[in-house]
């Protein structure tokens, strides 16, 4: 072996070692600052992690774009959902007076909220778009109360890192990090375009997460669970989406 190639070997080895330890340190730091998504271990998790980390670092406090009243879509569209069943119909006939949103997990005061109670909280509205991962979109006015208000009412503990939310439809559950959960535009929504939230659009209660694609805005929410770890929910990938092959983070 000539001297040059030995030197080359040593420098390459050192560079590789430096690169590997650099990556390891970067990984540790990213984990500490909550920049690793729960589905980072899936086949394309590397790209997913880059997207989530980059968007969280660069846009953590950014607001979703708001539109003027004139820009509200006259023809909104909602994907059909599976039949909601007899129990849903019964609740609907009772004007959802019996609908409950349970808040549990790492909260000081686990409890449930009726729709009327939620409506008694500060009423906020936003005119934002819903964009489906398929490519279509519409703009609507969303009326509700910030999720942060509900979490405060239940006394969410400071170590909470994610909010898991479930739908009346048992196979649709999602979770978001606290950057989105405490975001002023993340609503528990009960109204749309000045009226009640239509059932096709998620009524009586829908979680609106306007900085992410439509599938994070789960319809018919029934339960919020505060947690510091997503490992014990479902397959541990964060939500039903990665279990079905879709990314947990839908900021793009």
């Amino acid at each position, binding site marked *: 072996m000539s001297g040059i190639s030995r030197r080359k070997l040593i420098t390459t080895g050192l560079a590789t070692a430096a690169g590997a330890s650099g990556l390891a340190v970067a990984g540790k730091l990213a984990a500490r600052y909550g920049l690793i998504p729960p589905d980072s271990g*899936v*086949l*394309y998790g*590397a*790209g*997913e992690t*880059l*997207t989530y980390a980059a*968007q969280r670092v*660069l*846009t953590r406090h*950014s*607001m*979703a*774009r708001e*539109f003027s009243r004139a*820009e509200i*879509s006259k*023809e*909104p*569209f909602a*994907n*059909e959902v599976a039949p909601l069943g007899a129990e849903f119909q019964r609740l609907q006939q009772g004007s959802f007076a019996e609908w409950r949103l349970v808040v549990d997990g790492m909260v000081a005061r686990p409890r449930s909220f009726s729709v009327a109670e939620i409506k008694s909280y500060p009423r906020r509205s936003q005119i934002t*778009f819903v*964009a*489906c*991962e*398929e*490519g*279509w*979109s*519409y*703009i609507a006015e969303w009326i509700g109360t910030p999720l942060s208000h509900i979490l405060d009412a239940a006394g969410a503990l400071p170590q909470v890192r994610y909010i898991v939310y479930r739908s009346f439809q048992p196979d649709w559950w999602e979770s978001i990090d606290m950057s989105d959960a405490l975001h002023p535009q993340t609503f528990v929504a009960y109204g749309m375009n000045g009226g009640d939230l239509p059932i096709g659009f998620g009524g009586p209660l829908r979680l609106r997460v*306007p*900085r*992410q*694609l439509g599938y994070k805005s789960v319809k018919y929410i029934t339960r919020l669970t505060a947690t510091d770890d997503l490992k014990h929910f479902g397959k541990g990938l964060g939500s039903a989406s990665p279990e*079905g*092959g*879709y*990314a947990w983070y*839908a*900021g*793009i």
Partner: protein
Amino acid sequence: MGAMSPAADSVAGRTSAPALDRTARGPRHPALVRVTHWLLALSFLALLVTGLEILLSHPRFYWGETGNVNMRPLFKLPVPSSRDTVPTGYGYVLPDQNGWSRYLHFEAAWFAVLTGLVYFAFGLFQGHFWRNLVPTAADLSAKRLAKTVANHLRFRRPGEEEAWSYNVVQRLTYLLVVFVLFPLIVWTGLALSPTVEGAFPAAVAVLGGRQSARTLHFFVTILLVLFVLVHIFMVYRAGFRKRVGAMITGRASQSQEKA
């Protein structure tokens, strides 16, 4: 043509290496250009396939901020869809491939952008753009331009000097791809991210809105596909094995182009 000096294209004095001493000459393509070329080719293939899969879930295009099946499209593609909510006229629905397609699309996009940044830095700081892509004043004379374009239109095989340097049509095309189409495809793609739109609303508004950005993303894709098709055809005309070999090993053959 074959007897022409390889330095013929460096009239304005921009020449990369001692032109006549072939043994002293560096590789035809710098190693960094070769590596980034193939990495980008690989990312482009992944982006194209996954992009088409994502498109199949809604093969309709709109202009403005919003668009959905309740609204009139700007145009629609005559293909079946992977969603039963889209009226396509076909009696069947394709299998849904959006999940992995979206994952891979964004992973490949990161790969392409990071590779592209390395290439940009190299091009700027090592003189690759200036030396090999920016046409010389002589190249841009009407006569020279007309001749090069005519050679292309007649599908004339390039002479030996073009095994060592890009002609003016190549230079202008590569500049267009590197400085216009590549940034545009990234911009229109990022404009589709709700988070990015929130942070940089003007970047979406100037494109005409979210759905306009999606439509433009599609148009730029078509231009890139056209570029790749013509590029591959030209490589084939110039001698596929030699030119592809030069992009892999860096070695350009000297006078076997006619082989």
